[in-house]
């Protein structure tokens, strides 16, 4: 995966497969530690201790088509490559939280990528779920919620092309506002 956004998309798909009704993604940039922390939290079916212990092993997967699952191992490797770390916590029946920490200025940190596109497209693809995005840097914050958007839209579906395009622009503005000058690839 070349972008953090693609990792997030991949982890979100796990949440969908777990039957979640909400997926909350938070990105926090911290000057003091020089880290970018990404958490993806869902209220899906979760997993038991046994599964949790081996979930970062590429030869573990819940899918039935093949015996390998690479989403989580790839993210873990990506974090560790950039001087960060990876953690996953879960409880059977109540949900899963994936925490990925990257070193902001590490040369091997993947770029943020098209996060706005990922969040807008996921909102459109899974209209019954509440997909939220929170960006934090110091005292600055940006919040997005797909269910709040749907409340404003009323009977117009969130998957309407004009809506998706607007959402992408809206979230991109948030990213530039919060992370401009903080992540080197975002000029703000």
């Amino acid at each position, binding site marked *: 995966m070349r972008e953090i956004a693609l990792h997030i998309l991949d982890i979100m798909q796990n949440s969908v497969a777990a039957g979640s009704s909400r997926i909350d993604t938070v990105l926090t940039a911290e000057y003091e530690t020089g880290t970018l922390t990404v958490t993806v939290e869902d209220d899906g079916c979760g997993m038991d201790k046994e599964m949790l212990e081996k979930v970062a092993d590429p030869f573990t997967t819940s*899918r039935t088509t093949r015996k390998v699952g690479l989403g989580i191992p790839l993210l873990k490797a990506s974090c560790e490559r950039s001087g960060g770390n990876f953690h996953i916590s879960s409880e059977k029946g109540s949900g899963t939280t994936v925490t990925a920490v990257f070193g902001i200025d590490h040369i091997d940190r993947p770029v943020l990528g098209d996060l706005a596109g*990922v969040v807008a497209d996921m909102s459109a693809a899974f209209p019954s779920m509440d997909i939220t995005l929170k960006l934090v840097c110091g005292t600055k914050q940006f919040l997005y919620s797909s269910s709040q958007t749907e409340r404003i839209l009323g*009977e117009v579906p969130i998957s309407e092309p004009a809506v998706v395009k607007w959402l992408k622009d809206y979230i991109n503005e948030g990213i530039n506002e919060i992370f401009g000058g903080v992540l080197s690839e975002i000029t703000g």
Partner: protein
Amino acid sequence: MKSLAELEEIRKNTLDQIKMRKNKDGIRIVVGMATCGIAAGARPVMNALVEEIGKRKLRDVSVTMTGCIGVCRLEPIVEVYNADGSKVTYVKMTPEKAARVVAEHIVNGRVCQDLTIGAAEAAEKAKAADN
């Protein structure tokens, strides 16, 4: 800075179009978006589909995503569900091929045979026979 009030504007503008569309069966395009698809470049393919459909102002065509379709070596995979319920599976997609599928299949109803899973598997078989 964009405000949520603009959404209200979009809502008003699209409401009439939606009411007109309700009764028509549309074409559904599904892109495989699991680890295998994403790593193989499914995002740019999906973006190209959406862009091409937007450019041509096609109504009654939706683009959405799904998990692993099961043939990861042929990703990115795009499935087209026609209005009559039949399905065509396109494999090893690129943004360029995606634009072609929209032009030939979605707009003109001509399936791009050379991009289908059937063509890819026949080619693989022929290659294996040669060896």
